């Protein structure tokens, strides 16, 4: 690379890096620092002693086993579905692919509300007595993350050359042997990286555990929330944040090691018609889809059940502030706030994400360059795992005084949400950019195109779908973001997820019914965006 080229990449890397430092590292460090310097003096002993508390042990154990179990279940449920949706061709497969990815972008609060309704003693599955149990939480975690497994493994499956399997068959391997000796080794990197990411999501899940766990179950994330907001125990919160940060860095390093970009292929190129021996897998897929649909369908039905027949009464109530003035603003106002914020957050995430993706997708000749690029890539994956609560609280305590006083700035929430969506944008755009043959750029350059021109004629025509998809993805994620927003949204300008949480925290049947109606609206909005995104057929959306 020429000096000018290197300077260009440096400048490209500098902007998102500066943003990451100011709006991610600084707040997180501020939050963690509060724990180590509780009263101005350095006191690491307090942090260490937190780890001796029996309650902390309980929280840690619950975090590990619920996330571990949910990860295992998501993989077991998801891998056969990945095969059916990415390797078979049948009417409705496209719709099912969209359906399966939906839960991942559904706002956590919505999922919490949906599961609570489904499992409540008077709900459709009340007879199972799962309301408020750990099993319910695990089920909700699985619900969220099956799509990650399906998308990630599915992308690998599409990239596997079917002829390798055919070669094995002509060498005398039966279907099972072909799977175990050829297919599975090809999928393993995908399964491993999906499992790591799912474990990451499950162990840092916030909205679901908060709405469903009540007081009985807490994971590290909700515990940090409780410690900071209810008990004002910043030392305890900082200790847990640090522990979480360490675990996440280890997991991300592991995921960077296992992650190998799948060969990008078109879904249809390798797909075949189902045969009789696929029947079991099709039934399996049907069951998984039913599991994914059940909470949503029951939520929609409940939202139009007015007690004396069907109607839109609960939706009309959304123009009010709820039973007993539960809210400061009507739900509809919160919806507009959410949409406005999401537009800004998506724009921010996209511009930063593109810069990061451009840098990490460049092929580096020197090992030093490659290492730097991997490190850079890893740094921008951090927001994926770091507690959104830590981030949100960190914003509050570090960005409320000079040099950066953003406490009253309307940009605070969009910036925080953009940080949360940033890794997803990078993961969507970078694989597509990396799949462009470097020689195409070289050819364009040799024909006289300058660097910008090369971007325009080589990268953009290939990447525009991914850019559009990433924008939609960021928009949907931002719409549903709850963890950081719950700290940062001003009381008179709440977002829709925040309002939903306020509604279910207030007593009153009308409030819960309004929460369900509002959840349907929020889910509908994110679903609509994701359906549009899915029409763009970008394989890397939601794959890790």
């Amino acid at each position, binding site marked *: 690379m020429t000096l000018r080229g290197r300077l260009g990449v440096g400048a490209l890397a500098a902007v998102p890096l500066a943003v990451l430092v100011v709006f991610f590292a600084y707040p997180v460090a501020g939050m963690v620092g509060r724990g180590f310097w509780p009263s101005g003096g350095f006191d690491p002993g307090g942090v260490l002693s937190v780890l001796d508390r029996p309650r902390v042990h309980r929280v840690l154990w619950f975090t590990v086993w619920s996330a571990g179990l949910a990860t295992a279940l998501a993989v077991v449920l998801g891998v056969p579905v990945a095969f059916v949706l990415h390797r078979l061709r049948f009417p409705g497969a496209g719709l099912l692919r969209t359906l399966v990815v939906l839960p991942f972008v559904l706002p956590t609060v919505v999922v919490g509300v949906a599961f609570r309704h489904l499992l409540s003693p008077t709900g459709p599955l009340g007879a199972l007595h799962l309301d408020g149990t750990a099993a319910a939480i695990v089920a909700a975690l699985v619900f969220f993350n099956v799509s990650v497994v399906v998308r990630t493994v599915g992308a690998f499956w599409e990239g596997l*050359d079917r002829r*390798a399997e055919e*070669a*094995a*068959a*002509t*060498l*005398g*391997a039966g279907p099972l042997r072909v799977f175990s000796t*050829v297919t599975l080794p090809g999928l393993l990197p995908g399964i491993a990286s999906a499992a790591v990411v799912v474990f990451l999501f499950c162990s840092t899940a916030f909205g679901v555990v908060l709405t469903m766990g009540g007081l009985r179950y807490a994971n590290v994330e909700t515990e940090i929330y409780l410690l900071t907001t209810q008990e004002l125990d910043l030392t305890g919160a900082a200790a847990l944040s640090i522990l979480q940060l360490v675990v996440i860095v280890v997991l991300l390093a592991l995921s960077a090691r296992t992650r190998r970009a799948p060969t990008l292929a078109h879904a249809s190129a390798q797909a075949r018609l189902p045969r009789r021996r696929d029947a079991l897998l099709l039934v399996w897929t049907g069951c998984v889809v039913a599991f994914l649909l059940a909470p949503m369908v029951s939520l929609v039905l409940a939202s139009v059940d007015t007690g004396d027949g069907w109607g839109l009464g609960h939706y009309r109530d959304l123009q009010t502030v709820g039973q007993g003035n539960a809210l400061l603003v009507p739900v509809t106002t919160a919806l507009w706030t959410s949409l406005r914020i999401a537009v800004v957050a998506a724009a921010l995430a996209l511009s930063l994400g593109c810069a990061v993706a451009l840098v990490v997708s460049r092929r580096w000749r020197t090992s030093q360059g490659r290492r730097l690029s991997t490190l850079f890539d890893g740094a921008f994956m951090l927001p994926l795992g770091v507690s959104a609560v830590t981030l949100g609280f960190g914003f509050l305590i570090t960005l409320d005084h000079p040099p950066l006083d953003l406490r009253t700035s309307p940009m605070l929430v969009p910036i925080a949400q953009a940080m949360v969506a940033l890794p997803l944008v990078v993961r969507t755009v970078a694989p597509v950019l990396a799949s462009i043959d470097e020689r195409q750029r070289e050819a364009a350059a040799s024909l006289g195109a300058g660097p910008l021109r090369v971007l325009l004629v080589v990268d953009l025509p290939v990447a525009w779908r991914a850019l559009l998809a990433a924008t939609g993805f960021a928009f949907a994620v931002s719409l549903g973001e709850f963890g950081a927003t719950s700290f940062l949204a001003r009381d008179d300008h709440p977002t829709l997820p925040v309002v939903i949480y306020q509604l279910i925290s207030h007593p009153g049947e009308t409030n819960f019914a309004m929460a369900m109606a509002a959840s349907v609206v929020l889910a509908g909005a994110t679903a609509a965006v994701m359906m549009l995104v899915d029409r763009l057929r970008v394989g890397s959306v939601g794959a890790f």
Partner: protein
Amino acid sequence: MTGLEVRDLTVRYGATTAVDAVDLDVPAGSLTAVLGPSGSGKSTLLRAIAGLEAPSSGSIRYDGHDLARVPTHRRGFALMFQDGQLFSHQSVARNVGYPLRLQHGLGSRQARPADHERVAELLELVGLAGYGDRMPATLSGGERQRVALARSLAVEPRMLLLDEPLSALDRDLRERLAAELHDILGRAGTTALLVTHDQEEAFAIADRMAVMRAGRIVQAGTIEEVWHAPVDSWTARFLGYATILEGQSAEIIRALVDPTATWREVALRRSAIRLDPTGPLLATVTSARVTPEQLRLDLDVEGIGALPGVAEPGQVVAVGEHVRARVVPDRLAALGPDRSAGTP
């Protein structure tokens, strides 16, 4: 020992018919090539024979047994792909030993001593002794194809199916490997069916040939039969004949090589017209180019028009020069319904 018999085989993808009522015989012990341009359906035919595509109608039999209900892995036909399709996560030795491990059943992960020997033997056979521990990614294209061949032979297949096995290689390697493939398969006594779009590859490896066009077999027979008597002008061109003449031009040629024949169409190879000071044809040289084997000429032949021709490499020929030429009878093939009457 009847080998493979394909009868009236049709394979459809939706509305397109890729293989259209094909009959094909591959006698046991023979090396048969299906030669056709890309898109002619030859690969689909091969995949149907391997059991990877379901035929719409027709039958595939081997030694008299119908294979309709036999799944791919029980047919005993090893298929070697254009790019080898080695398993990239396994070493060369494990790739070659893969079919052997399959034969020992699910439990055996460990290679047996006898397998080791067999793998070494096979690698030796394809000229890659000592390559066992290499990974496929470290091999050249030609080496990969040899490993794929060794792996296919490890099955001791009833029949070996080869899908353009040499097309991905450069010319030099292709020629060398084609000759080796012919020898190796001959030594192993394997029945083989090869599909290719490259007539040189077919000639170098096979001893029987079927020409395929738009889903149909248009001609089949021994290499010599097909070569010397292409069934029509399209086949002749595809087999590398440079020019097709008909009408008066064809009659001029006919009068020179076989006045009693009645054919009206003839295919000429470039070397069918050769400069000869005593030859009967009068021509003007329009261009001349030196190649290692011969002097390649473009001629304007009196009564016929533009025709390619050749001369001895040492000969000095200038553009615009008036020359005489003769017809070399065994470098042309008569075409059309009356061709048998006067085949040279």
